[in-house]
């Protein structure tokens, strides 16, 4: 029985990666929930716009690297994030101006918005691939580890090692900061409150003199920030591949719906639930349990509940179970 080694092992292979993945999902899911509560449609272009924002960051990173600018030990990409936000913000605002605004004006049904976002998805998808193709791009530089497995082992003297990658640490810290700032913005500032008011009761917000176009503008800007951060952090952590970003659509939506569409807190909780479930159920627990089991009872199988290929099945199963018992999601789907 070596519970400490078990804990270290499970942290190294599951808890820390899941925490990082959940943070990335949470940033994306927050965007989905914001768009849903202000513009009132399911934004299918979410994954692809996230990819586009990341492309801008990668471009900026390359430019900075070519200039010899670096903020080592931190990855150069962090310095390029403002540029990415600028590019993606302009892109989303242009998409709003060219596509969505018309449907707002004619008060189109939500499904028409969804169709339009499919169109934007295709276009964005094409643009992303025009720049970087379909292959994997790695743009992480600087110090890769805060501490490595070996350093940890030497320091603690345990058999199991624990590594903390810079990308993971940066992700978790950034996500925390962003969430705090976002909640502060929504609950404490005039603009944030006007967004909540608009999402709560559109007609009354109009009567109160809140300008809907301004609310929509702020929403897209915040979405751009969230998407660029989520995309960059995900890319630093796991590398950039456009198709993976597209596929994040499912877990991001699952997180937002799970938490209750329209509830920012729900989106965050939902994201971590999805991340931990995906990782936990597709994780091979053998090593962990071999430390916990009494001598002679060590597990002989991998103790993996489902193969990694089925991580979407896990997301989906949780979603179905929650919706069956609580159709409005964990946080009652209260609007914003």
């Amino acid at each position, binding site marked *: 029985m070596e519970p400490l080694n078990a804990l270290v092992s499970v942290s190294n292979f599951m808890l820390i990666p899941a925490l990082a993945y959940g943070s990335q999902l949470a940033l994306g899911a927050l965007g989905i929930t914001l768009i849903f509560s202000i513009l009132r449609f399911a934004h299918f272009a979410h994954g692809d716009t996230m990819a586009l924002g990341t492309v801008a960051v990668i471009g900026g990173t390359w430019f900075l690297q070519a200039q010899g600018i670096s903020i080592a030990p931190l990855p150069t990409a962090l310095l390029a994030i403002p540029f990415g936000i600028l590019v993606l913000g302009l892109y989303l605002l242009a998409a709003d101006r060219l596509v969505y605004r018309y449907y707002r004006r004619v008060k189109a049904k939500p499904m028409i918005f969804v169709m339009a976002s499919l169109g934007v998805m295709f276009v964005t998808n094409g643009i992303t691939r025009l720049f970087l193709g379909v292959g994997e791009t790695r743009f992480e530089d600087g110090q890769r580890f805060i501490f490595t497995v070996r350093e940890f082992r030497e320091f603690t003297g345990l058999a199991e090692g624990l590594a903390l990658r810079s990308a993971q640490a940066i992700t978790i810290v950034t996500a925390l900061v962003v969430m705090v700032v976002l909640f502060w913005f929504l609950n404490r500032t*005039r603009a944030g*409150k*006007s967004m*909540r*008011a608009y999402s*709560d*009761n559109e*007609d*009354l*917000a*109009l*009567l*109160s*003199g*809140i300008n809907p176009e301004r609310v929509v503008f702020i929403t897209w800007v915040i979405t751009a920030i969230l998407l660029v951060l989520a995309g960059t952090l995900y890319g630093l952590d796991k590398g950039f591949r456009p198709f993976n970003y597209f596929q994040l659509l499912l877990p991001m939506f699952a997180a937002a719906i799970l938490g209750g569409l329209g509830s920012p807190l729900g989106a965050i909780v939902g994201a971590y639930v999805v991340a931990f479930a995906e990782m936990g159920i597709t994780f091979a627990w053998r090593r962990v349990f071999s430390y916990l089991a009494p001598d002679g009872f060590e597990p002989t199988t991998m103790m993996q509940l489902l193969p990694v290929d089925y991580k979407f099945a896990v997301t989906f199963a949780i979603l179905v179970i929650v919706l069956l018992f609580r159709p409005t999601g964990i946080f009652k789907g*209260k*609007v*914003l």
Partner: protein
Amino acid sequence: MAEPFLIGEAMTGGYGGADILHDCTIAVEKGQIAVIVGPNGAGKSTAMKAVFGMLKLRQGSVRLNGEEISALTPQARVAKGMGFVPQTNNIFPSMTVEENLEMGAFIRRDEIRGTMEQIYELFPILRDKRWQAAGELSGGQRQQVAVGRALMTQPTVLMLDEPTAGVSPIVMDELFDRIIEIARTGISILMVEQNARQALEIADKGYVLVQGANRYTDTGAALLNDPDVRKSFLGG
């Protein structure tokens, strides 16, 4: 006779198709209470919405303090000093009471604490519940939030669309008391009411509408004493 503070004169119009209002006139004097009553489908709410600009008029005009405002949007009328409390969906349910009031004052750029304080004086219960989400309050308290929200712009006219719909009689009396208090501060009140008798009791002026046209117009007391009005509209 001097022109009333707010007047919608000879209004004719409807929502696209057939006219709902026919040459209908509604007015309220400074600091007075005017009440619109009438049977269901008489166009009471429509008349009020026409005054507030939520309905396109084919004929007639709306003037506030002598100024022609017929062409203005509802939002612009709010800026001119008109406050409006819709009949339903008149609060921001997930926001706290205090945030509801803040949103009411959204167009104001000056200090709003004073106004908020006045509203808490008027509706003390709101002060106790200021950190609670408005959607969690009782029906009567929600109406107070709705009225308070509309008062946050410091309007000169407050328009209420059936403020007592769905609240208990005790709460209704209390709300009417508050409305009288508001009028005493110099704010003109224009109100549509289903509970005609109680409303006319506090009204300086009453309008009885039938099929989108003025049927009887007089002081509240006079209408209450008019045998025809009593028989047809007040149940004897």
